[in-house]
């Protein structure tokens, strides 16, 4: 029973991991930018949700009306900056790390380093759940899973079916050739940066529903999110989703049957194994890259 419940909640929380990782994975795969500032955008998304919901007494999910456009602009701006700087893959990692440090410090200066949590009145989702017998589905993770599924499905369809999507895949494969065929990668990548920023708003909102926020939280995401990106295959949206679920289930089940302390041990050992056996990612089946 315990294991079944752990598996279930693991699957659902895997949605949150996938939601956080999807943007990172796509910018990495398509635009060749390892954007650590994405963690900063998620953090800001979470704080904005907290702030707007608390001071305007808005339903936290409705704050998306504001945060999604805001983060779209932020993401697009960051991408525009990266484009202007013409960075290599590794330098993008360093520049975006610099940005992340700045974002965390600014967050800390604005909202203080103390824990911020939406009160029970503002955030009715925190403790709600749907139960089927003894099995329980927490609403926050259901929401995370649903949003992740939606984002992944949309991304998949866009990348497969639309001109912009095909153009992006062309950019991923060969920027110069794509350019020769009239694909304006500048505009497309800024657009993509914006969309990725918008997913950060979603992830931040979901995170703030069930967690207390401190600026340092951003660092805590590193391990798990990178694990998901790598396992899923860089640039593979669907793979990211599957990997998120796998990571959620793996740490959930290990926590339940062995010990929560052992979860990171098992998880990261699994990542090393996966990297060695399938360096292109466990679920890489030919997505974007």
């Amino acid at each position, binding site marked *: 029973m315990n294991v079944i419940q752990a598996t279930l909640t693991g699957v659902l929380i895997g949605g949150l991991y996938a939601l956080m990782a999807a943007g990172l994975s796509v910018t*990495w795969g398509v635009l060749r930018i*390892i954007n650590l500032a994405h963690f900063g955008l998620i953090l800001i998304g979470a704080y904005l949700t907290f702030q707007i919901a608390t001071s305007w007494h808005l339903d936290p999910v409705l704050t998306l009306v504001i945060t999604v456009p805001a983060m779209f602009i932020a993401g697009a701006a960051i991408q525009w900056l990266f484009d202007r*700087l013409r*960075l*290599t*893959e*590794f*330098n993008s*990692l*360093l*520049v*975006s*790390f*610099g*940005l*992340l*440090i*700045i974002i*965390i*410090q*600014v967050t*800390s*200066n604005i909202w203080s380093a103390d824990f911020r949590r939406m009160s029970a009145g503002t955030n009715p989702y925190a403790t709600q759940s749907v139960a089927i017998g003894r099995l329980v589905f927490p609403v926050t993770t259901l929401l995370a899973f649903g949003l992740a599924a939606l984002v992944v499905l949309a991304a998949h369809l866009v990348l497969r079916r639309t001109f912009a999507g095909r153009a992006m895949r062309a950019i991923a494969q060969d920027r110069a050739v794509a350019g020769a065929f009239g694909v304006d990668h500048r505009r497309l990548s800024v657009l993509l940066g914006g969309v990725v920023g918008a997913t950060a708003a979603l992830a931040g909102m979901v995170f703030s529903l069930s967690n207390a926020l401190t600026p340092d939280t951003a*660092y805590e995401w*590193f*391990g798990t999110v*990178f*694990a998901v990106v*790598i396992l899923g295959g*860089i640039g593979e949206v669907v793979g990211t989703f599957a990997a998120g679920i796998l990571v959620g289930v793996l740490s959930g089940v290990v926590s339940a049957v062995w*010990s929560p*302390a*052992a*979860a*990171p*041990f098992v998880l*990261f*050992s699994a*990542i*090393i194994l996966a*990297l*060695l056996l399938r*360096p292109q990612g466990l679920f890489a089946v030919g997505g974007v890259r």
Partner: protein
Amino acid sequence: MIRRGGIGLLVAFLVLVAVGAFSDQLGLSSFYLILLGSICFWIAQATSWNILSGYSGYFSFGQAAYVGVGAYTTAVLSGRHGVNFFLTVPLAALLCGLLALGVGAVAFRLGSLRGEIFALLTLAVPFILAAFARINRSVDGGQGTTVPIPEVPDAFGALPQFQYLLALLIAAIAVAAAYAIQHSRTGSALAAIRDAEDVAEVMGVATFRYKMLAMLISGVLGGAAGSVYALQIGFVTVESVFGLTIPLFVIVMGVLGGRTHWLGPVIGAVLIVTLQDRLSSYGLDAWNSIILGGILALLVAVSPDGLYARLRARPLAALGALVVVSGGLAVLNAWGEVLDWLVVGMLVASLLAIVLGSRWATAWLRRGRPAAVPDEAATATADDVTVPGDAAGDAVPAGSAESTVPAGAPGSGAPGDAEIEAGETGASRGADQLGAVLVECRQVARYFGGVHALEDVTLDIRAGELVGLVGPNGSGKTTLINLLSGAFRPTRGVIRLDGRDITRLAPHKIAHVGMARTYQIPRPFDSMTIRDNVAMAVMFGPESLPLNRARPIAEQHLATVALDHLADAYPADLNLHQRQLLEMARAVASNPKVLLLDEALAGLNPAEVDNAVRVVRRIHESGITIVIVEHLLRVLNQLATRLVVLDRGTCLADGEPQTVLNDPAVIRAYLGRQAHV
């Protein structure tokens, strides 16, 4: 230069030792010793990181693993089991060395490990170790460990002095190691790995061994410094040593200072540690991270090579700025203290070096004397097809008017044409000087997943031959080259070189048996001069030579391809033709028995093709057997003693050029098809 740098290092070390030993007499407060000790710790860590990540280009995010294991070894052994502190330092180094070898053995087992994957793999290591320490509560008792203050001989003075001297010693060892490596074969090998790893391997560099060596040294240094860190913080917990801050700061320091030079991380560490200290001393804590983050982002964007490269370009200006600003502030004595003056001086010097090194400043300074220095604008791209003056000069040989007909023979050349050309040129050389069988391929096959790139190719190449390898796109020509050079292993079959089975040999060993190759798209080592590019091949050839003895030999090879006048230039300054000549010089320099030329003429204009053909012939005449992949049948007719035609992975025809070109099957499969395209 080697001696000078070494002496400089030694002098700096002795001065710093003296500063520590006589700190009381100098009136140096213990804070300065602690700060210097902290700088030394970061120098040691950043240098340890740099030896692997800077030199070889494999970025590690796992520096915390060494700090953590080193600190834990010292803390747990001396704090909980009463082991002498001085014994724990080498133990920490040993453990970290073993850890590094383990990680390296796992990570580098993958032939084509991508840099980012390595980075993330190393990111996972501290997480695993931290979790391991938490699961096994018996390691640290569950709450962290206090590090007892070791019994220090009186000669070392008080604890801060001792801590500083110990950290200084380890930092000095680290920097000396980085210095020695950079000026040794290992340094050259690592630089080649950073620039183009598989090229280096095929050229004869035992890349796996050098990467492991870099890992090992990096681990040993990181571990020793980690054990000193335990003493500096006094109380060790999982969070304090396995965290993300350490690897991130180490990377920032390495990148800021410059990762290709041993001084880079030293500069980065000094600047970051002192700057942080000053910021916090002025109560700018809330700005500390913002300023650091800003510096990192800006610097990487503006000067990705790091500060060292910019400072080296303008040593006097930078030093002058440092002395004037710091000295000026000291003389005025209106504000701050020594450390403030120094930090301001260093910042101004760095800023000046960056500004002076920037593109617009360079352009402005060179205004009015345009021809004085090779201009950056001359930097050729791969599409640039200018022929250098002298090469063009002798590229108009008498009686070869026909050879200047535009290239592209496979497209335009009807079978008849080819026949005439073959008759004209192939006869000019006999097969008289053919020797023993040099290369044997026995039923060699190579599959990529379900794609059969090569299927049961059996082929003998004799000494002295010049074999042309032709076939339509995707027929397996390049695959065969890759199999011969060892870049891929055959799915089945046997390859022998000079009687020796090389089928399962590592590429660098195959190179030592006597195989060399060039690449269709030239892949020079970008960070080295043209001379050193070729010297690399000499150094790591069958007989190992030191760099200073390899250089004169390299110049001879450059003369063979008429690039000797560019020996001091960098690959970025060459055009495509010159790059391809460089490829050939480099391949010949490794003293091969067999030379594989993979479309060495692609993309050249007719005059360049003629020049290249002359070079190939010269190489062949020097006694090297050549296999050349080429689309230009006209060229092959001139050159080859024999043609091998591949089609869909199998050997379609093999023999005298004109016989092969008259073979109906060849005409149908290759020329015929091409003619209709």
